[in-house]
């Protein structure tokens, strides 16, 4: 029995493991922070959000300030899929954003089938 926890992460409820929903790679214990099992890259936000105004001339150029903002990108270590991005302050630890109670998940969702339970998302998975 497997359930989707995010667009890209699923939980094997019997084995209690996080898995990549793209490449089926088994990431690690579902009782731990999934981010521990991913590759992390700290990215300068200017690479993603190009300035609209000339940054040489204007401090406020409609692009995040790298002094106070960094993007943490989290990749599947097997296929490189970007499972999450986190905008944070440089030097801050990644946020443990999702902590599902696996026992409760088993109890409440184990009757549901993976395909049926995510009809919307599954239908649009490429």
């Amino acid at each position, binding site marked *: 029995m497997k*359930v*989707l*926890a*995010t*667009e*890209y992460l699923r939980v094997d409820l019997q084995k209690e493991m996080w898995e990549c929903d793209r490449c089926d790679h088994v990431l690690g214990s579902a009782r731990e922070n999934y*981010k*521990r099992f*991913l*590759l*992390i*890259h700290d990215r300068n*936000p200017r690479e*993603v*959000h*190009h300035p*609209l*105004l*000339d940054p040489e*001339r*204007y401090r*406020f*150029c*409609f*692009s*995040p*300030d790298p*002094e*106070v*903002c960094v993007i943490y*990108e989290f*990749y599947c*270590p097997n296929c*490189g*899929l*970007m*499972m*999450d*991005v986190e*905008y944070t*302050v*440089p030097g*801050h*630890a*990644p*946020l*443990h954003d*999702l*902590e*599902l*109670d696996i026992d*409760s*998940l088993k109890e409440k*969702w184990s009757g549901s089938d993976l395909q049926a*339970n*995510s009809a*919307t*998302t599954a*239908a649009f998975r*490429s």
Partner: protein
Amino acid sequence: MSTNLVNPDTADDQELVDRFLSKNRAFLGPDPAIQRNHHVAARSLHEEQVLSAGVDSNLYAEIRSGLRAALDETFKIAEMTVASPAAQCADMSTGYFTAAGDLSLASTRGVAGFTVSLHYPIRFIRKYFEADDTVGIHEGDGFLLNDAHYGGIHSPDQHLFMPIFHDGEIVSWCVCAMHEGEIGARVPGGMGPMIESPWDEGLRGSPIKMVENYALKTDLVTFFQNSCREPQTMLADLKARLAACCRMERRGKEHIARYGIDSIVGFLRSNVEFMRDEGRRRIAELPDGTVRTQFYIDDTMREPALLKVMYCFTVKGDKVIVDLRGSSPELFNRPINSLLSTQVLGVAITLAHHIWPDMPCAQAIIDCFEFITDPGSIADCSDQVPVALCIQPMFKIMTAAELAFAKLYFGAPKKYGKTKAGWFNQPAAIIYGGVTQHQDSCGNMCGDLNGMAGGAKCDEDGEHSIAPCFGANVDIGESEDAEEKLPFIYAISKRIWPGNCGFGKFRGGAAYEYGLMRYGEQPFGFQTFTGGSYFPSTFGLYGGYACPTYGTVRVRGKNLFNVLKETPELFEASMASIMNDRLIEGAEYSSHSMAVAFELYPEGELFMTSQGGGGGYGDVLDRDPEMVIKDLEEGLIRAETASDLYGVVYDAETYAIDEAETAKRRTEILKGRLAQGISWDEFMATRVNPEPPPAVPFFGRWNNSEELYCGPFGKALPSELPPIIMPDPKDVEIQQLKSQLAALQTLS
């Protein structure tokens, strides 16, 4: 009333003491027992009698339709007669409440958020005024409220409450609530960076009986008009609210006559209980778990700062604990603090608008939520600090709740709304004030505040500048209408610029830039009070990127109407062209944060800014290349974004996609990720620091610190926070200049 009249000088001592103790309170300030309790009241005896006898669902459905029609009718009456520009854009709501003050039914259109938080003042009025001979509650009374400490969102909103009586008993309340705008604050429009204390916030209307015998009291109306910049608007809107309440009361009584009092009281209460019980049932469907979000409010409105707001939602059985601890301490002299009631309100609005859109918007739907805070923080501030821009932290908890429940619901067997990324969440409006071309004084905001873009959804892109995060059924108003009334023109009106959306498999909605050019000789100016200039304000979901950051930009020192007349080819209605090309000789070009204090602008000067985009959804490499090219053609993204970020290879002339090369480039990007990404342990060892960066003052918890950082005032445990009184940025600058001058003098 006359039967109770006694000259206190003739009373005996004990009676005098009793009377003194019961009647004399130094100040009927906001009551924490009311303000800190968002839960549904207990059933009254009458409600218990009616509901214990059983509920006729068909009858109640009929009553619901009738009362809903009355609310929509009265909403329209008010909308067509108000003068406040925000209310004309539907920033208002009407509603029926139970006798105890719980919201039972609100109008379909408008911003239900107004009525959602109005049980507080009704409870206050009943608790303190009902038995007070000098006030009392009578048929045909109307109470006005605008101070958020007694309920509602913020002071620029004004609400009128009218009791509905039956056989001498209060059986219901009706309310017409709206964003009025101008309330005689230190700055026009009631909100602004320069508000530094509660006493700068203008009129602070605790519930005031403004209406008796269905008529406005002229002395009080005159006082209110005399205390603000827009006396005509004030009067027009008081009348509009009264007309709406009178019609609501009439319709309420017609329903009582038709269905009987028991059916109406039973319906109003059962609707509240349905919302309460259904909210709890839906929470119980979710698995237990915790979802955390943290945002940074990047501006105190006077200086850059990183004010952390932490939101931790824990589902446990049929309850939700919302833990706001770790958020920034309150700032004593900056307007961005929020009351707990404002944060609670934000959660209710989000649940109703984004997570359970089939549910009515009322506080009852989050009856099973509990809130934990650090009192004295930006998310639960004291009564001593200004809250004029409480919508800053309020919009943050709204996005936090949006993302938290998107995550909790992702794999759920039953969802009530579509999974999506963060809506834009800043009040990106220009506020104006001064004298109009019609010689009226004014101070209010542009309807552009409502032009926020929607977040990307799990199966489609977000909508462009569609609606504010707090209400689906409002408008941005007409540029021409504003130009007719106010001394400016929209020199740039609703222009999309590339990069103003969160990128992803599905992109967030884009938002527009706009620029106001002053017209006429009269004194008139602008201000803004928006965050998100340094650090993005709203976030994406599951690998989708955030919105970008924004600024305000100006062209000053030159009358651009002359330029338009003499050399029209030098003016292009585009912020980027104007600022990057700088074709107009002698003009001063400058960019600023999204929070700039009020200043006067002479004729022909240009003030520009932008509304914000929605967050993206999913990995950018999952986006259909055709959709990337369409974004490029529509000017939503830049060429570099299409090729470098989305990895699409195309012909720059024809935009034809090279599928093979695109697949190759995307594979290279994936490989690049595997090469550049590092493990958790390495990341924690090499990237994570024990202290926040020194570049900008930091406020709130850093990583797992017990203490809260207090910017320039060090750090302290939440129970021992120092008063954070920020120096005036102008004094700081003068001090720096003096030091530089002294250093230069020493050199010479």
